[in-house]
């Protein structure tokens, strides 16, 4: 067993033991504890939990590589702005009001504010979005296990499933929240230590956010020498328009994803919900302002190695080539010296490039590329697992509470006792874990694309009707149902029209309309949802007087009569 494997085993073992202990200590026995942790989580802890919930395997493992390799610098910042800017919308437009409304789930708000049809559409959206998203996390767990511990991917997923199953089924939202606080701590330490070390090594400035300014000029030079495009130049024309659409879609999508919104229900009160948003963005910003520095430093290191001679001479090259992350151009095997100059060349121009470097390598291999010792490599592996597991458990809770609360309790058995509801919640959680694990072992071909598109659907379905439901008293049930349906149908139709036909039989692979990239279409679907909801609301039956008063009361913190009666279960006509 190598040093790296031993250290990985140590860090993974210690962190897993910690999660299990925390989950056992915070086990619950009532539905309020299971769905929203009893609504008693202090704001800083809730913020850390939101951050861990939010930052998935994609943020931790893939984002820096996406910026440096797939997007070549500037245009990758659509993800940085998009995945943080949504929190401004959440803090001001949704979090305080949904918390004041005082229910358990997003479909709960939709169903109570509008009607049962709208609730049903919301339940289906919440489950579909969460399930596609959780599959990616389970696959991520398997990947980390297989790369660092050389166990089979299937075994890795099974271990991950067992851990999540234990703390999510036992502790519900309470167990999940406190484990996520620990997982945030693990993942942020694992992300920052290599970044600080590499920044110090290359620039003598320990703060990577300042340090990377020192290497940008040199990086630009290397990019030009090796035939890569300009790393910092802004976009123009349709590139600029698509970057705007992608950024906006990610922002509004973030504010429309049920697993994020539900976290504001766990806050103690309206004020704590606002502060949760502040803490959450603070904790997220620690990683998100570091990610572009990791991208630039690692790309700088790789390009210097390539321009100085043979990339294959680097100590990390063989490890990652044998893990299948550094490959030849068709990704079918190890890279070969195509032009016979005795070296593996990493070049920007298609004809002279000999190697394909996977996006994920930039973070996972950054300690090795930067020449850092084995314990840090093990720590990064534990961090990647923390990111994947924390997001998976948050998503599983949305699935379980949607089934148990919105379908079973509200539709099937209104007289269900506390104990019955809890049992149904635990069973659906268990089933969701098994389904997610099964799909994670053998992900369907289009899973990767579906995750990116989940944001488009979040923006086009939930965001407009939630905001209008709070800010516009006369928004009607028929309007909201029509708006949601129009947003989802048109957005889905555009995906089917434009996505490459080789990834699934129902994608048509046609040319995009007006050059609009499918990932950015959610913003347009959202505008359509707004328009349809507003127009249909003009011609349909207005909400009852009581409902309009209730919406009015949601705008003020503190105890208000109607909201209190509604929260205690009194039916409001």
């Amino acid at each position, binding site marked *: 067993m190598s040093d790296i494997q031993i250290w990985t085993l140590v860090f993974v073992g210690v962190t897993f033991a910690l999660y299990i202990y925390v989950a056992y200590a915070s086990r619950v026995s009532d*539905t309020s504890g299971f769905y929203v942790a009893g*609504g008693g989580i202090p704001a800083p802890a809730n913020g850390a939990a939101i951050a861990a919930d939010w930052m998935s395997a994609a943020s931790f493992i893939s984002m820096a590589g996406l910026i440096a390799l797939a997007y070549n*610098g*500037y245009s990758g*910042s659509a993800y*940085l*702005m998009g995945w*943080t*800017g949504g*929190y*401004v*919308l959440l*803090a*001001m*437009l949704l979090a*305080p009001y949904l918390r*004041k409304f*005082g*229910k*358990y789930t997003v479909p709960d708000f939709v169903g109570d504010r509008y009607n049962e049809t709208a609730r049903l559409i919301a339940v289906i959206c919440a489950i579909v979005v969460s399930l596609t998203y959780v599959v990616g996390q389970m696959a991520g767990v398997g990947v980390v296990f297989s790369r660092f511990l050389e166990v089979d991917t299937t075994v890795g997923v099974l271990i991950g499933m067992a851990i999540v199953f234990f703390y999510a089924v036992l502790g519900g939202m309470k167990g999940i929240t406190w484990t996520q606080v620990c997982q945030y701590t693990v993942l942020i330490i694992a992300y920052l230590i290599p970044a600080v070390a590499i920044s110090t090594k290359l620039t003598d400035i320990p703060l990577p*956010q300042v340090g*990377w*300014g*020192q290497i*940008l*000029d040199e990086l630009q030079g290397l990019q030009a020498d090796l035939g890569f495009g300009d790393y*910092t*130049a*802004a*976009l*123009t024309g349709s590139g*600029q328009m698509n970057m*705007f659409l992608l*950024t*906006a879609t990610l*922002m509004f999508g973030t504010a429309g994803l049920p697993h994020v919104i539900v976290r504001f229900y766990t806050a*103690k*009160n*309206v*004020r*704590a919900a*606002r*502060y949760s*948003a*502040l803490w959450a*963005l603070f904790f997220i*910003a620690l990683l998100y*302002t570091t990610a572009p520095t990791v991208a630039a430093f690692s790309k700088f290191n790789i390009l210097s190695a390539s321009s100085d001679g043979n990339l294959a001479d680097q100590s990390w090259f063989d490890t990652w080539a044998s893990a299948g992350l550094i490959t030849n151009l068709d990704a079918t095997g190890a890279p070969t010296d195509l032009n016979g100059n005795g070296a593996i060349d990493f070049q920007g121009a298609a004809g002279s490039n000999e190697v394909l470097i996977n996006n994920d390598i930039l973070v996972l291999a950054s300690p090795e590329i930067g020449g850092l010792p084995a314990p840090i490599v093990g720590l990064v592996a534990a961090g990647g697992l923390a990111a994947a597991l924390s997001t998976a458990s948050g998503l599983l809770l949305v699935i379980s509470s949607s089934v148990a609360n919105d379908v079973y*309790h509200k539709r099937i058995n209104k007289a269900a006792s506390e104990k019955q509801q809890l049992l149904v919640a635990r069973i659906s959680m268990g089933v969701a874990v098994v389904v997610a694990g099964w799909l994670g072992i053998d992900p369907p071909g289009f899973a990767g694309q579906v995750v990116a598109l989940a944001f488009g659907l979040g923006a086009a379905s939930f965001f407009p009707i939630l905001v209008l439901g709070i800010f516009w008293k006369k928004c009607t049930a028929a309007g909201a149902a029509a708006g949601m349906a129009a947003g989802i149908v048109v957005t889905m139709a555009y995906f089917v029209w434009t996505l490459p036909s080789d990834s699934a039989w129902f994608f048509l692979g046609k040319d995009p309309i007006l050059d609009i990239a499918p990932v950015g279409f959610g913003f347009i679907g959202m505008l359509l949802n707004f328009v349809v909801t507003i127009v249909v609301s003009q011609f349909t039956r207005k909400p009852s007087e009581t409902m309009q008063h209730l919406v*009015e009361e949601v*705008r*003020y*913190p*503190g*105890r208000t009569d109607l909201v*209190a009666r*509604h*929260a*205690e*279960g009194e039916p409001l006509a």
Partner: protein
Amino acid sequence: MDEQTRRAYWRSNLRLMTILLAIWALVSFGAGIFFADALNEIEIAGFPLGFWFANQGSILVFLALIAVYVFSMDRLDKQYGVDDYEEEVRGS
């Protein structure tokens, strides 16, 4: 709280929100995307300014915007006497 006070509270909230969201859009879509090319002419500490806003500046501004919102709302709640948060209820 009577009707008029309620309305005044809500109007103050909406005004604050509008200002903050305008800054939100200006910094991200403006400085980070549409004016990025022009701002890149300016370079500070090694960073072309438009590139910096897209990568880091916008995130720091977002954080500042939420902070201003949270603190201002605390003050507003107190001023209008709606700060009895502990009395809020939750149900099923």
